[in-house]
């Protein structure tokens, strides 16, 4: 003890000093490392914020595809409550809530000049405030942590392009029967096709009474009538069938189709209205006995059977506005019935009695812009904006 008490030196102090310096350096290094980790985290958040904002644009396009705002209040719901479902797709651990504002905000408004964000329906265009042009501005903003991304783009809705040829009032792959006891002509022109296009009927077989159509309608028979592929091709039938399946307008029984509920533009009045595709068993008959569609909103009814063993039957006095297609044959009416548009049958068409086919070019042309499929980005309108 005595010897220890006499010890002298500065080694301990020196070592403590060096260790302290090392500790400070080490701690600073840890701080820097953490700082870079934080920066990396912020980078990831920024990238995720932008990606989610693009996802929000996609979600907005999906919502507008399902419900294009043709009138005030008729557009899709993008309120906070509606966006909760969108938020639920992103875990809070990986996609934290923002410090301020909402996680996601989607808004849409018309592309008027100048822009009026209160006009949230397709009221006009950039050149005419009262002429809808199927275009809307879509803006999405997403916030995460301290980061935010805001994207603006113009979107445009596209339509199913029917490609149905103009001027064909009737096509039949078999014979056309029409000896209706003095009721001819039964095939008329209600609205003519564009100038230069001749209205015609195409009959692969024979026409039992040439007076069946008006004098201004050309009758093409035999090989000159062509095939059903010229008028209502398989690709169109397949496309319409796929579209009907997508939107709940495909049926396997006549009763299911007849009793189907309204479905927006796809079937404004339910039943056989709008787009209706029925694939039926052999020997099935489908009778039309109400008014379906209108000149402003025409429809397409397809009655399909692989064996061409089905019948489209005209019932009591009513009207069908649009295009009727059947793999089978068309039966004579059980009362007066008028088709405003076009009739296509892969087999015989029997319009004996008091039914009429009135070619209506407005109906045929409107079928090309009848059903919107989806909305897409208008090129050269995408911008990343400063978040608000």
């Amino acid at each position, binding site marked *: 003890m005595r010897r220890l008490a006499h010890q002298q030196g500065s080694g301990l102090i020196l070592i403590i000093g060096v260790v302290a310096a090392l500790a400070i*350096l080490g701690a600073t290094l840890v701080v820097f490392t953490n700082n870079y980790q934080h920066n990396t985290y912020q980078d990831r958040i920024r990238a995720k914020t932008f990606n989610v904002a693009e996802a929000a644009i996609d979600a907005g396009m999906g919502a507008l595809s399902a419900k294009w705002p043709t009138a005030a209040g008729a557009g899709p719901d993008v309120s906070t409550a509606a966006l909760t479902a969108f938020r639920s797709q992103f875990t809070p651990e990986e996609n934290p809530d923002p410090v301020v504002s909402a996680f996601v905000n989607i808004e849409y408004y018309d592309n008027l000049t100048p822009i009026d964000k209160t006009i949230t329906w397709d009221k006009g265009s950039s050149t005419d405030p009262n002429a809808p042009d199927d275009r809307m*501005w879509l*803006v999405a903003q997403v916030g995460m942590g301290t980061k935010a991304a805001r994207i603006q783009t113009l979107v445009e809705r596209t339509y199913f392009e029917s490609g149905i040829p103009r001027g064909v009032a009737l096509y039949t792959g078999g014979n056309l029967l029409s000896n209706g006891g003095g009721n001819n002509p039964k095939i008329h022109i209600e609205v003519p096709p564009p100038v230069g296009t001749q209205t015609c009927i195409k009959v692969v077989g024979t026409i039992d009474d040439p007076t069946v159509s008006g004098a201004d309608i050309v009758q093409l028979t035999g090989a000159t009538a062509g095939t059903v592929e010229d008028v209502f091709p398989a690709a169109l039938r397949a496309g319409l069938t796929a579209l009907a399946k997508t939107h709940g307008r495909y049926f396997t029984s006549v009763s299911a189709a007849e009793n189907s509920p309204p479905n927006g533009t796809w079937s404004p009045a339910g039943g056989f209205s709008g787009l209706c595709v029925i694939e039926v068993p052999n020997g099935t008959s489908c009778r039309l006995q109400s008014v379906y569609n209108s000149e402003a909103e025409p429809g397409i009814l397809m009655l399909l059977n692989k064996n061409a063993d089905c019948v489209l039957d005209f019932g009591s006095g009513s009207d069908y506005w649009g295009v009727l297609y059947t793999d089978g044959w068309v039966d004579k009416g059980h009362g007066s019935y008028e088709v405003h548009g076009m009739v296509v049958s892969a087999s015989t068409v029997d319009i004996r009695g008091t039914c009429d086919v009135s070619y209506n070019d407005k109906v045929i042309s409107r079928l090309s812009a009848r059903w919107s499929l989806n909305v897409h980005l208008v*090129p050269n309108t995408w*911008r*990343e904006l400063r978040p608000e």
Partner: protein
Amino acid sequence: MMPGIAAKKRGRLRRQEGLTLVEVLVSLIVLGIITTMIIVAYFALNRSYAYSVASGKAREEARQGLARMVREIRDCETRLDLPEAAIVRARERWILLYTTFNEEGNSDPAMVPGLVMFRLYDNGQIWRFEDIDRNGDIANIDENSYPVSAVHQEAERASGEGGRSLVGHVVNYDGLISPTPVLFRYSYIDDLGQIQMSNEIYYTQNRVRIRSVQIHMLVDLNPKHAPVYADLMSTAQLRNQRSN
């Protein structure tokens, strides 16, 4: 001296204990080793610290620069009043494009996009230039060719309109790596509708077919020392060429 005192003194000297020469030498050697270790550790840590800070900053700068280029390139858009593509020059060391990115009030569709250029110089710096006065030209910049001499390059950096350094220590063209990583590569749609890649695309009718731009930066995180590379790569898809 009294006999008693002398005897006492002799006895005390005999009782004194000390370190032998060997002990002192061993102590010195051990202390020397420890001191050397401490000093070496200190300098190593100091160097490591300095490197961490410098490389961290370099990495951060490179990442930010890359992110900025990606965001501006993907945002580029065509000026509808001019017969020109959204990307006006598509070369491997520089790109010139129209964009409204980060402009105040660019939510107004009528805002006309301005020219922005990113160019990599021989000194390893990527610079960003901008047509600030919106006169359709970036002043004091040769848009069509790369200034060969260091003097001309320096002049561009000094007087190019809206010029500022974006990233430093980019070593793509230092000749240290083979093959040379190209800074900008362009994917475009060819006549057959196939996606192709090219380092440079000439003529407007070809540039309108560009669909995305790949950016590949090789950054030296430890300049003036043994090189430590950060290899950063990203692709900017031109959003305004999309329709879905």
